């Protein structure tokens, strides 16, 4: 990688755990709720140091969302922790009525999202959550790309007002954003290029950077932009880039319907129509397997991103 040094590898969920623990020290109103997945969500440190502010709810996610909504009324800032599937699809109506419509300051923190959950298979590999959550009026949706960014995003949510969804994952993944600033709603341009824009979120940002290297070997200058905040979308960053490159690829560990690609397509069609290719799961459930094998099988590999970039460039007039 040209500009990016991998300092070490860690899971993004550990970034959440570290950020939550720091928030616990900073703000006595931060409380954490967990639905029997303490270790998986890396909430152990928070529980150890702030036991009176840690609420174990058991395997009862609907109740957890209601409790969180109620806690905000007394001025608490609740962070709920469970798998992404149980943080969204299982409790959509609870989130919709008690949190989003009611305007409650709940931070829904969701691990094990997407195919890279791996061996547990499709029951747990939610690929629809970004769509569900971004459709809710007033909901902020954040999909950080590595341990460090997940840590910073968690801390940023401590001072953010309003309902928010923070999506992260299970696998150990390169850490490459150390020292970079994080601001909710402000996209992070990782590389500069004039041939093609590559918009990515979550684990896919690293793969997009790898694809950028592959493209560079062919003389293609790609601009990789980390759209860590799906909503509110950094429309300016997207348009500025596509006005320069004339075409775009989106990359996400999500269904092709409803995710980042949809948001970018909507933006481009309204403001600056341009060719767009989406690297995403194509209307399919996942399956058990190793994370990288699954990304390859479902068309989300580095090679898929590079191929999409060449394809979309060929569509430019």
């Amino acid at each position, binding site marked *: 990688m040209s500009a990016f040094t991998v300092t070490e590898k860690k899971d993004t969920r550990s970034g959440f755990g570290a950020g939550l623990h720091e928030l616990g020290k900073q703000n006595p109103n931060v409380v954490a709720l967990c639905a029997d997945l303490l270790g998986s969500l890396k909430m152990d440190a928070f529980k150890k140091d702030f036991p*009176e502010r840690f*609420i174990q709810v058991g395997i009862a996610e609907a*109740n957890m969302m*209601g409790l969180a909504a*109620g806690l905000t*009324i*007394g001025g608490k800032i609740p962070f709920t922790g469970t798998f992404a599937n149980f943080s969204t699809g299982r409790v959509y109506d609870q989130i*919709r*009525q*008690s949190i989003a419509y009611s305007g409650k300051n709940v931070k829904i923190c969701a691990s094990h999202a997407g195919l890279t959950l791996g061996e547990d298979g499709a029951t747990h590999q939610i690929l629809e959550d970004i769509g569900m959550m971004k459709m809710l009026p007033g909901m902020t949706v954040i999909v950080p790309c590595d341990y460090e960014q997940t840590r910073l995003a968690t801390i940023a949510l401590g001072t953010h007002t309003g309902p928010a969804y923070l999506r992260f994952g299970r696998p150990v993944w390169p850490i490459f954003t150390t020292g970079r600033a994080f601001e909710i709603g402000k996209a992070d341009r990782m590389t500069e290029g004039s041939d093609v824009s590559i918009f990515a979120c979550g684990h896919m940002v690293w793969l997009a950077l790898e694809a950028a290297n592959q493209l560079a070997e062919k003389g293609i200058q790609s601009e990789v932009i980390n759209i860590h905040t799906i909503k509110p979308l950094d429309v300016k960053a997207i348009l500025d880039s596509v006005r320069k490159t004339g075409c775009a690829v989106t990359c996400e560990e999500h269904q092709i319907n409803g995710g980042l690609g949809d948001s970018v397509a909507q933006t481009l069609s309204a403001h600056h129509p341009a060719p767009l290719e989406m690297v995403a799961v194509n209307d399919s459930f996942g399956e058990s397997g190793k994370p990288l094998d699954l990304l390859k099988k479902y068309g989300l590999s580095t090679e898929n991103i590079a191929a999409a970039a060449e394809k979309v460039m060929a569509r430019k007039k």
Partner: protein
Amino acid sequence: MPHPDLPQLQKLCSQIRRDIVRQVYNCQSGHPGGSLGCTEFFVALYFHIMKRNASFQMNGKDEDIFFLSNGHISPVWYATLARSGYFDVKELATFRQINSRLQGHPATHEHLPGIRVASGSLGQGLSVAIGAALAKKLNKDDRTVYVLMGDGEQQEGQVWEASMFAAHNKIDNLIATIDYNGQQIDGPVDQVLSLKDLKAKWESFGWTVLESNGNKLEEVIAVLEKAKTLLGEGKPVMNLMKTAMGFGVDFMMGSHKWHGVAPNEEEFKKAMAQLEETLGDF
């Protein structure tokens, strides 16, 4: 707690019943049955039992707060809130109309004073109330959280998640009540999906359970006073409150048919003739 002013509270019950029927008649929609059945409960709670601050603050700091989980009985809550001074009674005329703060089901979105969470999709209110009770404990605020649910609502699974949580975590600053009127939209609860022994269910989940008649004002006050004496003892408190749906209007009483139907003009007049105007209609 001073002795209740029963004649005044009875006047409020009669007026609020008129307000309920008028709201539903005006917009030709809404839920009169459960609203009429719970009138004594709302009057007892807001005009005698709860310690309330003079003006509405979302955080409910240092005051008792109430959540309505079965949000469809919004007419009785709106009338109670208006008669308690949270907003002008004239605003009851906007119930379920466009641009109103009085949504079909209670909402915070339009900032109606007195409402702290949206409800309507059933089964969620107890969880929210427990969350608010937890926040009071964390804040060292020793006031009480009240919540009302429907009996048909007990068919929602989330209620039992919340029930288990409250007992396990000793949420003893909470008084829950179930409007036990035995009716739901499609018919008697026993025919739609029986609750069997509801008292035994709540007791076995670890709650202290009281039983009461919700249409006798003195009894409603007495059971809520009794419930207050049970707070702080490590167990949440449940008030199983038998009511008659539609109580106070003879042709609406005791039938699920008036769960969510508005009266026509003739029925409206007939209902009004049975309810004394005590404090001035809106």
